[in-house]
């Protein structure tokens, strides 16, 4: 019996378990998936919680609902991958052998990496919204907040769902406007990037949106520490920004076992070939989702597009053929802009987000780099698609390779 071992049962790992169980015969292949947690969070929903649009129940389901029949499930912490021995050590002393390994252990927020972030004000005046705890605590805080300086700060790159902090400030603008508090809330977006986003056209479009909504932006800002006593953040150059409420996007790190296994970079993201999705030093290890150090967004859509590539390449490897599928870094992100509207960006390693229509050229129904109601409904509809189609590894009517049709250069 051959063994396929999947580490991580989040979006990427669960999709791969479903896909591979369909294509690998049960008579020949054992598939095992390992995760330390039993709850599956719909992470794109966290953004909606601070503004009372979703609550905790809307984003939680048991992981076990999404595993296919015929996959062994182990809930345990992962200690180390011993790649030379084709073996994974779990925290409780159990070791698992594998023929092929998929690492899909994602990324976590690490507020402890920034001095003073987890100080006296943590979850009093300082919040994150990338964890369920942070999102819920912030929702509670916003219910009675009387206004002041709201500072949203991205600590460093890379971080998951790169558009979420922008959506957060757009939502905040609408939320406080609807409550009649907007003139008392000063919103500032503080980012290490030179502008609102990375690529020229999306940066321009999103930068203009920030301006229209009267949201300040402080670019090229790399936070060094939080001064809890005087309620301000300080960067390495000494620039201070005062806050009444700080919403932080903390440093993102890969899983600790990646470091212990010697497979990652200095942020514990697994060193991965950006085209084949193979770990750079080990032919029988593949990597998918946020856990990989490939130069594209850390986002569910990327994991979804990469899953088809990984399925094909894993089968190639198993059958001793050359790896034929090549990942293009495709990402597709709906961006909520508030007031029941949204925009959409679609890009890959080489092509920046361009205006146009998606997924059908000329027809849409979604507009790229345009603010429309349909885009917002696309995002809301996506939660259903996520639970019922995407996690189960079923096909969607969107090509995994980015398409140029429908885009304007």
């Amino acid at each position, binding site marked *: 019996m051959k063994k396929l071992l999947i580490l991580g049962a989040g979006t990427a790992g669960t999709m791969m378990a479903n896909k591979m169980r369909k294509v690998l015969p049960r008579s020949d292949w054992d598939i095992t998936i390992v995760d330390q947690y039993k709850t599956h969070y719909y992470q794109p929903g966290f953004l909606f919680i601070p503004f009372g649009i979703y609550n905790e129940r809307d984003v939680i389901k048991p992981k076990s609902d999404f595993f296919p029949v015929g996959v062994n499930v182990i809930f345990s912490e992962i200690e180390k991958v011993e790649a030379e021995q084709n073996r994974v050590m779990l925290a409780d002393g159990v070791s698992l052998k594998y023929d092929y390994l998929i690492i899909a252990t994602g990324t976590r927020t690490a507020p402890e990496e920034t001095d003073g972030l987890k100080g006296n004000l943590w979850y009093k005046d300082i919040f994150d919204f990338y964890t369920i705890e942070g999102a819920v605590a912030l929702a509670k805080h916003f219910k009675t907040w009387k206004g002041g300086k709201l500072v949203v700060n991205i600590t*460093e790159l*890379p*971080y998951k769902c790169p558009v979420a902090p922008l959506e957060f400030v757009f939502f905040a603008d609408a939320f406080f406007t609807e409550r009649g508090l907007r003139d008392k809330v000063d919103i500032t977006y503080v980012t*290490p990037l030179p502008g609102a*986003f*990375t690529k020229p056209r999306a940066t321009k479009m999103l930068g203009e949106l920030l301006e229209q909504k009267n949201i300040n932006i402080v670019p090229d800002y*790399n936070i060094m520490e939080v001064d809890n006593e005087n309620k301000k953040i300080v960067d390495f150059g000494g620039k201070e920004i005062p806050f009444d409420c700080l919403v932080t996007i903390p440093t993102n790190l890969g899983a600790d076992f990646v470091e212990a296994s010697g497979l990652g970079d200095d*942020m514990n993201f697994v060193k991965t070939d950006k085209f084949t999705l193979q770990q750079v030093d080990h032919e029988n290890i593949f990597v998918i989702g946020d856990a990989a150090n490939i*130069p594209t967004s850390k986002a569910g859509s990327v994991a979804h597009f990469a899953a088809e590539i990984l399925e094909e390449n894993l089968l190639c490897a198993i059958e001793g053929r050359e790896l034929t599928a090549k990942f293009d870094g495709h990402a597709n992100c709906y961006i909520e802009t508030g007031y029941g509207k949204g925009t959409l960006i679609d890009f890959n390693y080489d092509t920046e987000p361009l205006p146009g229509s998606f997924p059908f050229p000329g027809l849409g129904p979604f507009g790229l780099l345009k603010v429309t109601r349909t885009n917002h409904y696309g995002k809301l509809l996506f939660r259903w698609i996520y639970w019922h189609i995407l996690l189960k590894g079923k096909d969607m009517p969107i090509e995994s390779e980015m398409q140029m049709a429908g885009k304007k250069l």
Partner: protein
Amino acid sequence: MSTKTIAGVEVNLNDEGYMEDASQWTKEIGTEIANEEGIELTEKHFEVIEFIRNKVAAGEGLTIRGIGKSGVVNAKEFYGLFPGAPLKKATKISGVPKPTSCI
């Protein structure tokens, strides 16, 4: 792209003033670009420049975190040496491409 004579050497620069060919770089060129940026290079600057050039030559990415953990300088010292936008300035002076941020 444009051509410019820096410290007696004719070099190709891109639109943002970054050198196109890192192998053309000399300490003298670095010193002159630094002067244009209002920075006078010290021994410490050259240690950082050497680290940056070695990283780039090895095909590895540059981040403020990475330079802060290099053992050459910490992040705060790096800001002190190249005030404002340290990574952008330091790479320009080192004659290597501007780091691209992808998110």
